[in-house]
């Protein structure tokens, strides 16, 4: 396989905080340790982990909002911890690895949709015609072209999040990290955002890393990575990861509902064969089982 777009070697990060009520003592809070992870171009990865597991820290390390305290991160072959790593390189990494956050309100800068989408390209110092072109294209990708002149605060949560995504697309990144971008949305908005994620991955060839709480979303990804207490503990296809449901339970996670149901039935002694992740698959597996059970 070709060189990964993101490669982490023994990556670790420790937050240092002043301890309360003392002047000198500092507390070190390890958030992530010894993470080895390679992400290849065009992959669709989900990152799972309960709150405080370190998954958001990982995201922030990948586009250098945080600087690793241990180990190395290579973005497109470039070592970000290298001492020759310049400020221009830093902004190049941030352009390549875009990030969409949880709260859409706190990501939008401008009072008009198209100006917000233009914010990234403006920062890159692109010529005006190019910015215009990218804004139009990005709004088309997220199907928000009719809202170019609207005020963002009048849009729904899902629409705002689509604008935030357009703002990232306009910078033409190689990778987009969605840091719990669906957590604050209603089911409809969530479905919209997931659809766009998958469209970006399939049609635009953008590598998608979806950090999420929703197992149903994770089950759709090609590859699932599970982080627990700052350590990467599972890394494999969705089928592989969700096959060990007891392990997931031990670390406070669940499998998608269908898989959970089948797991519970198996525990009670029903010999159900086959893997099933999505709702449709579970329904089929159960129907097949019922057929065989009757006869």
């Amino acid at each position, binding site marked *: 396989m070709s060189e990964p777009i993101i490669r982490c070697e023994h990556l670790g990060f420790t937050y240092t905080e002043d301890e309360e009520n003392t002047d000198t003592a500092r507390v070190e809070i390890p958030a992530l340790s010894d993470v080895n992870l390679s992400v290849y171009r065009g992959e669709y990865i989900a990152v799972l982990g309960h709150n405080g597991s370190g998954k958001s820290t990982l995201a*922030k390390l990948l*586009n250098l*909002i945080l600087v690793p305290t241990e180990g190395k991160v290579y973005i497109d072959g470039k070592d970000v911890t290298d001492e020759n790593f310049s*400020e221009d390189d830093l*902004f190049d990494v*941030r*352009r390549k690895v*875009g*990030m969409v*956050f949880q*709260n859409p*309100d*706190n*990501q*939008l*800068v*401008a*009072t*008009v949709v*198209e*100006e917000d989408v*233009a*914010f*990234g*390209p*403006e*920062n*890159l*110092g*692109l*010529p*005006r015609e190019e*910015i*215009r072109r990218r*804004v139009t294209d990005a709004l088309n990708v997220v199907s928000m072209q009719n809202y170019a*002149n*609207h*005020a*963002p*605060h*009048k849009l729904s949560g899902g629409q705002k999040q689509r604008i*935030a995504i357009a*703002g*990232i697309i306009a*910078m033409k990144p190689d990778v987009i990290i969605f840091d719990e971008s669906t957590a604050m949305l209603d089911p409809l908005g969530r479905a919209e955002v997931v659809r766009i994620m998958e469209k970006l991955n399939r049609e635009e060839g953008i590598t998608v890393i979806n950090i999420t709480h929703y197992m149903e979303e994770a089950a759709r990804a090609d590859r699932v990575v599970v982080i627990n207490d700052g350590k990467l503990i599972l890394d494999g296809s969705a089928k592989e990861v969700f096959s060990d449901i007891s392990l997931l339970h031990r670390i406070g996670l669940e499998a998608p509902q269908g898989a959970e149901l089948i797991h519970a039935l198996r525990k009670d002694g029903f010999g159900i064969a086959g893997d099933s992740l999505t709702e449709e698959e579970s329904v089929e597996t159960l129907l097949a089982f019922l057929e065989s059970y009757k006869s």
Partner: protein
Amino acid sequence: MISDITLGQFFPGFSPLHKMDPRMKIIAAVIYIAAIFTANTPAAFALMIITTFFMITLGRISFKVILKAVKPIIFILIFTAIINVFLTKGEGEPLLAFWVIKIYKEGIIRAVFMALRVVILIIGTSVLLTYTTSPIALTDGIESLLSPLKKIKVPVHTFAMMMSIALRFIPTLIEETEKIMNAQKSRGADFSSGGLRKRAKALVPILVPLFVSSFKRAEELATAMECRCYRGDKNRTKLKALSFKARDFFAFLIFSAVLTLVILSRNTDALIGIKHRVLDIVFYKL
């Protein structure tokens, strides 16, 4: 549209005044203010009033709105006018004299001029800068006009960015305040009864969570901006650049002409000489 921010009562529209470059509007407002304070003859005031009416019509602002703008200052205006009438001493015989009060012609003229000045000042600047210019356009205009100050290290871009982010978050924070108030009300808080002291006290439990969440928002926004490669105005381009059009130069000419006429109509000895010379030249040419 852009207009959806309700601050300073911007009325969205497509009138020639709306389309004017915000920088030129600021410049025009400065000239206009200079003209108002230079004016001291009835002719000059007539000219200023005509200019103001012209602006109102051009901006398609209804007279109701104009009345609303003037309403809050009417009391102060009348009060100062009366003081002016009573306290100004003039030459010659007073027009009216009873007991200790003497009213002179100069006093009346002065009061009328002063009142006119304040009224057209408020109307004119509101029409130019608030009613027909969105706060964002105004911010852009100010940033552009002040950009020469960047040479002496004044962080003009940063201030403009702060201003526009503040404007962007006004509706968000209003929404949030409502949410917090409802949450407090549902737990029995009372914001609408009691004296001033009690009401002010009731605001504390709203302000504290509002501030906490604003700081959190600010931090998240800063991270999001960094993720989008924000690095101040270093190497930054703009989607929409301000550009002067023919109408802006035309407006500049009109305002300059008004100021010139007002200066020429001034009744001061120092200017009379210059005035005669200019008029001589003009008439000689004709």
